């Protein structure tokens, strides 16, 4: 205690010039004594060696030509180039929906909103993008701005609900655009999901994996707490069975074995859908256990108070128990969803061209042999961007909901 007090008093007597200058900070924290100075120097030397090697690789050795040459493949896989306009339309609409729901939910043109609208402009800086791509990015930014401002003039009462409907409508339109309608020669010929690939597929698998597994997981968590033996036992069996099996084996089952089990004449399910079902079923079991943790953290008093108010079980579950339980487990759930996003790369092992599958086929292209460092580096950066965005969004959500503060 005394030494800490001494240190504090030491700091308080520092001359004002040293207290608030960089040199003062450096001297105090990095070179306070001999051992500290040695450690600082050693760490600096190490950092210098690593950074200079990394920079030399990135700017001298690496052959980045592989990325522009295969950029379309990385973004959309085998999705036909003639239909790429549909993907841009999906992105425009995404911009508009994000802008509009931002207005509905937050109302302000705050810092984060500026960050969002800046994304298309930052992407425009990527040197090898064509003028057409840049134009598409400008349109996306314009669409989100339009969504934001037009929504401001609309007399909308139930803002949250409208935003939810908007998102739902967007998902339907997006799937129709991606999938296509009508005849092979029509304006929007069908594109089978197995041709969707690259980043597009990774994001879709992660998004639908998360949104479908979440309600299933909540239902399983409630089922596991149920007093009805049949439901409880079935939930427990499901959860424990799925958790006892690696995801890759579920994927293999879906891809290879499913057709052997199904009855004769049963239509062949698209392989991407099979992978999505496997991911969803797998993730639901883990979600269930995380949510159960939240449910068990709710004190009995909450149930009893809800009962005393005359709420039905349904009402108390939906309005009292679940909101508190889910709020408590947001960090855990987001961690699980990020890991689900990264787990989607396993589909590359069953012959589906997600981001990793595309990377591996690019490496087999004779024109780009031996570029695994460059390709894997880019794939890693893409995964990092999306994983970090998810964890950033969840932190903001936690702040808004006051997790850990009340």
């Amino acid at each position, binding site marked *: 205690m005394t030494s800490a007090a001494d240190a504090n008093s030491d700091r308080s007597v520092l001359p004002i010039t040293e207290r608030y200058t960089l040199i003062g900070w450096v001297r105090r924290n990095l070179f306070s004594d001999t051992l500290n100075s040695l450690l600082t120097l050693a760490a600096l030397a190490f950092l210098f060696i690593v950074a200079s090697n990394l920079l030399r690789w990135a700017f001298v050795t690496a052959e980045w030509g592989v990325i522009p040459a295969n950029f379309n493949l990385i973004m959309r896989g085998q999705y036909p180039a003639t239909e790429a306009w549909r993907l841009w339309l999906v992105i425009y609409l995404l911009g508009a929906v994000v802008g509009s729901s931002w207005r509905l939910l937050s109302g302000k043109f705050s810092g984060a909103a500026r960050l969002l609208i800046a994304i298309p402009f930052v992407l425009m800086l990527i040197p090898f993008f064509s003028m057409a791509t840049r134009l598409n990015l400008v349109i996306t930014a314009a669409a989100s701005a339009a969504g934001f401002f037009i929504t401001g003039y609309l007399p909308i009462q139930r803002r949250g609900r409208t935003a939810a409907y908007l998102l739902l409508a967007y998902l339907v339109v997006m799937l129709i655009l991606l999938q296509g309608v009508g005849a092979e020669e029509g304006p929007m010929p069908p594109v089978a999901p197995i041709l969707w690939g690259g980043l597009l597929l990774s994001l879709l698998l992660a998004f639908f994996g998360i949104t479908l597994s979440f309600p299933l997981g909540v239902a399983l968590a409630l089922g596991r707490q149920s007093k009805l033996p049949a439901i409880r036992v079935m939930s427990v069996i499901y959860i424990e069975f799925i958790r006892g099996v690696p995801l890759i084996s579920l994927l293999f089952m879906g891809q290879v074995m499913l057709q052997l089990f199904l009855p004769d*004449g049963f239509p062949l399910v*698209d392989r991407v859908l099979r992978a999505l079902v496997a991911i969803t079923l797998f993730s639901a079991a883990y979600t269930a256990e995380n949510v159960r943790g939240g449910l068990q953290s709710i004190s009995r008093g909450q149930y009893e108070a809800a009962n005393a108010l005359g709420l039905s079980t349904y009402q108390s579950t939906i309005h009292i128990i679940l909101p508190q339980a889910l709020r408590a487990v947001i960090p855990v759930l987001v961690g699980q969803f990020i890991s689900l996003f990264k787990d989607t790369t396993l589909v590359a092992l069953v012959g589906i061209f997600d981001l990793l599958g595309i990377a591996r086929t690019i490496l087999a292209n004779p024109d780009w042999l031996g570029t695994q460092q460059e390709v894997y580096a880019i794939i890693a950066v893409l995964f990092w961007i999306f994983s970090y965005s998810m964890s950033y969004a969840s932190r903001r959500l936690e702040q808004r909901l006051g997790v850990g503060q009340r």
Partner: protein
Amino acid sequence: MKSMRKLNKVGMILSMVIGMIIAACMSPAAGPEVVESDEAAAPAMQETQSTLSIVQERGKLVCIGNSQLPGFGFLDSEGNFTGFDVDYCRAIAAAIFGDANALEVRPATARERFTILSSGEGDVIIRNTTWTMSRDTDLGMNFGPTTFYDGQGLMVRKELGVSTLDDLQGASVCVITGTTTELNLADQFAAAGVDYEAVVFEDFDQSFTAYEEGRCDAVTTDKSSLVSRQTTLSVPADHVILGVTLSKEPLGPAVRHGDDQWFDLVNWVVYATMLAEEHGIDSTNVDSFMGSDDPNIRKLLGLEGDFCAKVGISNAGCFVDVITEVGNYAEIYNRNLGPDTVFDLPRGLNSLYTDGGILYAPPIR
């Protein structure tokens, strides 16, 4: 207690709703892509329905292939399947439909390929598959004519001055674990009485990088991949692939046991590409042969006799379509592995028997 029971109801209803959502996602209503799968549905009917009729009803061939082998199967930058093996898939599709693009390549790993074929989700494996006795018998495969004779080779640094296995006494060799490659290495070195140290890796990228970094004196895998990888080394001329071959790797198409018509069809499409080269017919000059008097050429091009009908092909173009759309053996080889590519792989055993190789197609008669 009553409240808990109601809670159960909520759980039950929720799970039912979600179950229905999932069922809806999997149902045929999900999208037009399922239209084609209605016909594709019949793996279990294979006893009654021939593979060819399934393929024809489906309107396209499903070929179990590789998406990660340079020169043999990969996606080009436009997203099209390309490669030596893929070209043979295209040849079969061209023979049946007159359209080489009436094809879906189903990428598969080495392990799952036979299961996929057995389950009926694919019609033929053309995926650098080595013809071995156990696969031919236990796994219930029928192997078509070998399209590519490969063999396991060794690459070493030139400065070591190694030219035979005996020179590798005490050397360390980078090898992929759990493969026939590793076993062949052990067998051959034991037979030659040479001691070596195996440095094992999970995949060839790692194994080859280790060799490049000097962690082992030699690296081993199939010769065709060694050649393709040599071009990626910083100074390719500093390395040499030894003449010795550690194993026989005849690579070719495989189909299920029990459908002889389909087996014959695959065989004769492959033979047709070889016969076309033998007669000097390629995709550019095939039209000029349509007036030929040579009975062998007339039979190959369908001008005499009705040979394609014997394997059930109703497409009148048949082998002519194979040659126009895909080409003869030399064209397929040169396009993917030959002098115009980074591999520049010598034909070697893969030459016609008339040129010192062992490609020998039986006559069409």
